[in-house]
């Protein structure tokens, strides 16, 4: 026990000093691969995280995002590839000495300690004296707005409060990297929204380099500086939320982020595709798609809709979203699409109305092979 804590204290001295300056460390994941039996959880993942940046790894369950995070944390070892923090390879460093704050999906507070002691735990491991530790833990609890709950045990706190304490606990050690493993997924919607803002606010204020794993695209898009969309152990695209939405690199990204329509089209093999009677330029991710009948991917705002007699579709439903109304249309050939229209203009598009749906020439379209 003594050796371990002493060693922890040794590394912490420098880390606390470095983090004290407020600058986060750059983190580089280079060609990380990891297999569990026959399953390839990570397949050559490479990702650069700038100092102070919040990068979200987004993807369906089983895409390897959690494995990536756990390798960075030191809970798993990569089969090949490296993780460098501040230019140094951390692969041989055990989790306890990596100086990474982690917030877990499930409630990970120590049930036998008060909120204050939980927050102070990391400082205690760094041999900080009780008085100093108490002061710092109290300050962090104050930062997450839980000063009044300092003396309470985890079971006396709500789910949201527990995650805030967990966040304070992770930040107390002034980590070089903050790792968030779906920290909001166990919370109800309203709390999730508040905590989202709080985490982002604190992260920006402290400038801590942060890797955030989530399967919730809204969470990723609203919080992250950049989002990496993962599929089958690989990064499909890393980009800012705006870019990801408006210029998705692949059909997978396009369909995973935001709402996407699939409309049949005819692809000649070049840079253009014929869809709903117009010829549209396609994104450069068509290398793998053979010419011929394809699915064209286009967002609800990339389609236009007009009420006309004997159009190519019939309105089946509509959802009021405030300034916009999302209209569901059944096109001939049994293709269901969603079209966004400004709410006043959509007033006459009641279900049953015959409409003409077309692709906005300015819209971004992608093509994908017919499944």
């Amino acid at each position, binding site marked *: 026990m003594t050796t371990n804590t002493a060693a922890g204290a040794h*590394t912490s001295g420098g880390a606390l000093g470095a983090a004290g300056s407020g600058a986060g460390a750059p983190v580089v994941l280079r060609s990380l691969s990891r297999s569990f039996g026959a399953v390839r959880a990570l397949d050559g993942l490479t990702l650069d995280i700038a100092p102070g940046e919040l990068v979200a790894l987004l993807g369906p369950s089983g895409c390897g995002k959690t494995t990536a995070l756990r390798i960075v944390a030191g809970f798993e070892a990569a089969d090949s590839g490296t993780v460098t923090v501040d230019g140094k390879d951390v692969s041989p460093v055990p989790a306890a000495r990596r100086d990474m704050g982690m917030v877990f999906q499930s409630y990970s507070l120590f049930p036998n300690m008060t909120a204050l002691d939980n927050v102070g735990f990391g400082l205690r491991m760094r041999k900080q004296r009780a008085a100093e530790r108490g002061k710092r833990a109290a300050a962090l609890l104050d930062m997450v707005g839980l000063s009044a709950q300092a003396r309470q045990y985890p079971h006396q706190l709500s789910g949201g409060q527990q995650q805030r304490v967990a966040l304070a606990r992770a930040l107390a050690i002034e980590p070089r990297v903050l790792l968030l493993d779906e920290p909001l997924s166990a919370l109800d919607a309203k709390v999730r929204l508040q905590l989202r803002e709080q985490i982002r606010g604190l992260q920006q204020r402290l400038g801590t380099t942060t890797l955030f794993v989530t399967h919730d695209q809204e969470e990723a898009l609203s919080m992250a500086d950049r989002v990496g969309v993962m599929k089958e152990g690989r990064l499909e695209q890393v980009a800012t939320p705006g870019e990801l939405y408006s210029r998705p690199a692949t059909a997978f990204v396009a369909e995973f982020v935001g709402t996407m329509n699939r409309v049949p089209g005819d692809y000649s093999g070049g840079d253009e595709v014929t869809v709903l009677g117009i010829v549209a330029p396609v994104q450069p991710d068509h290398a793998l798609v053979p010419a011929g009948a394809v699915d064209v991917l286009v967002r609800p705002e990339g389609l236009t809709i007009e009420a006309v007699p004997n159009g190519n579709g019939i309105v089946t439903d509509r959802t009021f979203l405030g300034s916009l109304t999302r209209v569901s249309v059944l096109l001939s050939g049994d293709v269901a699409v969603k079209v966004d229209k400004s709410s006043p203009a959509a007033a006459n598009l009641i279900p049953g109305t015959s409409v003409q749906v077309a692709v906005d020439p300015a819209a971004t379209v992608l093509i994908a092979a017919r499944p």
Partner: protein
Amino acid sequence: MAAIASTEQSGTSVPAPAAGAAARRRSLPVWRWAILLIAAAYFLIPLYAALKFAGFKAFTQVVGYQDFGSAFALSLRLAVIATVLTLVLMVPTTVYVYLRLPRMRRVMEAITILPIVIPPIVLIIGVLKVAPGSLLGTPNLLGLEYVILAMPFAYRSLDAGLRSFDVKTLVEASNSLGAGWPTTLWRVVIPNLRTAMLSATVLTVALVLGEYTMASLDNFQTFPVWIVNFEQNSGPVSVAASLLALFVTWILLMLIVTVGSRSSRRRGFGQVTLFSVGAGGAGHTTVGEPE
């Protein structure tokens, strides 16, 4: 034999006060009361009959008998040895298997059931074969044998305890905050395993205080052996001795349970009762609900 039977009885009678407390807090349907009464009658009527048969005088006689003190002291000493060794051996082992070798859990379960299946004489011979010479002929050897006997109960208590909270996440959280393995075990795992450890302690103590076969085969006059030897002399006095054994065991277990519950309730864990660990689930969810 009477001693063994009486420890089992005392084991079942421990949760009774907890059930009473629950009854006071919320009104139970009538049929629950009926079952409680029938069960209570089943245990209490023989006790009452025995008490009446023995009479008060017999008790004072028992305590004055030869070797009562030394036999009782030996049993207590064995209980302490067996409990401490069991916890020291089983807590780290169970935690390690749970976290690092989850596939070994079935094997562990099978191994830990062996002491129940294997006849005591075989266990004794086995222990004699491997025990260092310095232990032979000392009561400490019997203590080691009791550790083997207690293993099934201790393992099950601890395994159930580990399943009642998210050990893996807590250990990882502790690691990420800079705590090494020994610190994590000491500051994070063991405090949360408290209820299970208490349960293991209670079962081990109950087992040691009631064990007759091994002690008599090894020729040690433990409390149960003393009672059996003694019983052959006089009727009321031997019944009084059996009752005394029951009460002593019962008081001891109640003491352990009370001390344990007091410190764990303060932190919001469920009340410790003999059989609460497996069924109780996560300690922190059972606050204020003794059932």
